[in-house]
């Protein structure tokens, strides 16, 4: 194993940190805390979903059948795979293989685009069937009380999630460029790690959304 190049890493350490190790530890801790806030943000919507699911169990079950399980399943596979590619990207960045890392990030972005396209298809399908939130709901098939509520929550949950996918994509795109330029190596690859963590959160939220909205 080659020795730590002191001069190279010193450039990455900010003036208020005693050393790189502390700085990286701080960065990771900060990201974990931020992810906790994101979980609580979605938590509010999950709470609302739970409450209304409890109030309208049969209606919600029936309404979820109007969603495409196929689309949801494909999207789940797509996102889980993208988490794999982003983890691999960090692995390669950490080992100084910037170009390979950038390619893997590109693949991840590709998966994200596929996810969004499928989502867009689902949403337009719902628009046509009148399965819209709140006062815009005008389906002829689903007429029970809780049906508009299901779709209100569906659009809020998947919309907020989609927004986070877009934010994640932006972050990963920036990292992709930096990886390609050879910015990261054994001494310093924290940004890629943090970007990957954010992407894993986006994936994790979907893994909870999928069964709640599509399967039960």
């Amino acid at each position, binding site marked *: 194993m080659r020795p730590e190049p002191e001069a190279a890493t010193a450039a990455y350490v900010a003036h208020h940190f005693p050393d790189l190790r502390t700085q990286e530890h701080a960065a990771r801790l900060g990201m974990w805390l931020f992810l906790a806030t994101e979980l609580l943000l979605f938590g509010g919507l999950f709470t609302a979903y739970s409450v209304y699911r409890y*109030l*309208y*169990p*049969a*209606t919600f079950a*029936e309404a979820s059948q109007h969603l495409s399980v196929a689309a949801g399943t494909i999207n789940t596979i797509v996102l889980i795979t993208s988490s794999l590619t982003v983890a691999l990207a960090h692995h390669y960045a950490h080992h100084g293989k910037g170009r390979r890392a950038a390619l893997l990030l590109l693949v991840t972005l590709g998966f994200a685009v596929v996810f969004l396209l499928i989502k867009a298809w689902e949403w337009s399908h719902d628009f046509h069937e009148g399965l819209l939130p*709140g*006062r815009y709901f005008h389906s002829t098939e689903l007429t*029970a*009380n*809780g049906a508009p509520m299901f779709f209100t929550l569906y659009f809020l949950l998947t919309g907020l999630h989609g927004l986070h996918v877009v934010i994640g994509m932006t972050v990963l795109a920036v990292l992709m460029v930096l990886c390609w330029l050879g910015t990261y190596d054994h001494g310093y690859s924290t940004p890629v790690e943090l970007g990957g963590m954010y992407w894993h959160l986006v994936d994790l939220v979907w893994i909870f959304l999928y069964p709640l909205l599509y399967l039960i």
Partner: protein
Amino acid sequence: MNELMRRMLFLPEQGSAYAVEVDHLHFFVITVTMLGAFGVAGAALLFFVKYRRRRDRQVTEHVEPRAIHEVLFIGVPLAFFLLWFAIGFPLFVKLQTPPKDAIDVYVQGKKWMWKFAYPGGPNGVDVLRVPAGRPVRLLITSRDVIHSFFVPDFRIKQDAVPGRYAQTWFNATQPGRHQVLCAEYCGLGHSAMLAEIIAMPPAEYEAWLAESRRSTVAAAQDSPEDRVDPRTSLAEQGRRLASEYGCFKCHTVDGTRHIGPTWLDLYRKTERLQDGKNVVADEAYMTESMMDPAAKVVAGYQNVMPTFQGRIPGPEVAAIVEFIKSLRTDAVRPEPSKGPVYVPVPGYDPSIVR
């Protein structure tokens, strides 16, 4: 002693036995609070005087608490808190469990009045008559936004929530009058949403009830402002009142444009005003237009409407608004309603076949 403390603390009269019990807990808590606060202040003052700084850089001892200190710091307050909870919570449970022989009264809060209805009996607006000495259960809901039914004399309060019923109860010990105030902010008329409970001697109450169940009802209401006939629908009364107050001189009900905007389909319509802004014609807007017509003048109309401030009492304003709301070409409302069109029952899903 009870009376002295009640007056010192500005508490209203104790209209029920429950109110007396609540006040006793109050006196207990406030006395200990005063003693505690002044005790702490006194200790601080004592220490400040005794341990005044004598030299600029005076050295002090390092003092650590012994376990007993923290035990007392925790234990003494905790003992009081638990005691107060042990007194106060069962009292609350008592308030939440009306006696089986209570008379039921339905209460509906609505911007900005209280409507009362006896099952199988008369209705009332802003006046509730009950027999003294008998428990009365109130089943409270709202027609639009959240209100709160607050009777200071009885120390009771319960929010009126649209889409559900809540209950509370009281037992007025003596005949008397007790004010009702709305205690949940609900818009312009929140502080004007006052009502009155009239507790009557039981014999008088029975007589009034019997009388009001016959057709001659008009004289039964005490409130001189209350010319609303509880037997007919509010919208029908509104039509009659609008005619009496001369509204139809300027407003039509069939869509024709006249001196003022037509009332047909006015409710929830987005009106464009003279200053270019838009406003949704809801209850608040219609009420404001009656009281302060110059505030929002619809574009294309003259500012000639007189003000009815002080000329139309609250219940009549409500009736006129209800009448305007009933003037729709289409019976189905596609926009969000001001009040529930149905009352969903939590836990009941009609699509489940049992």
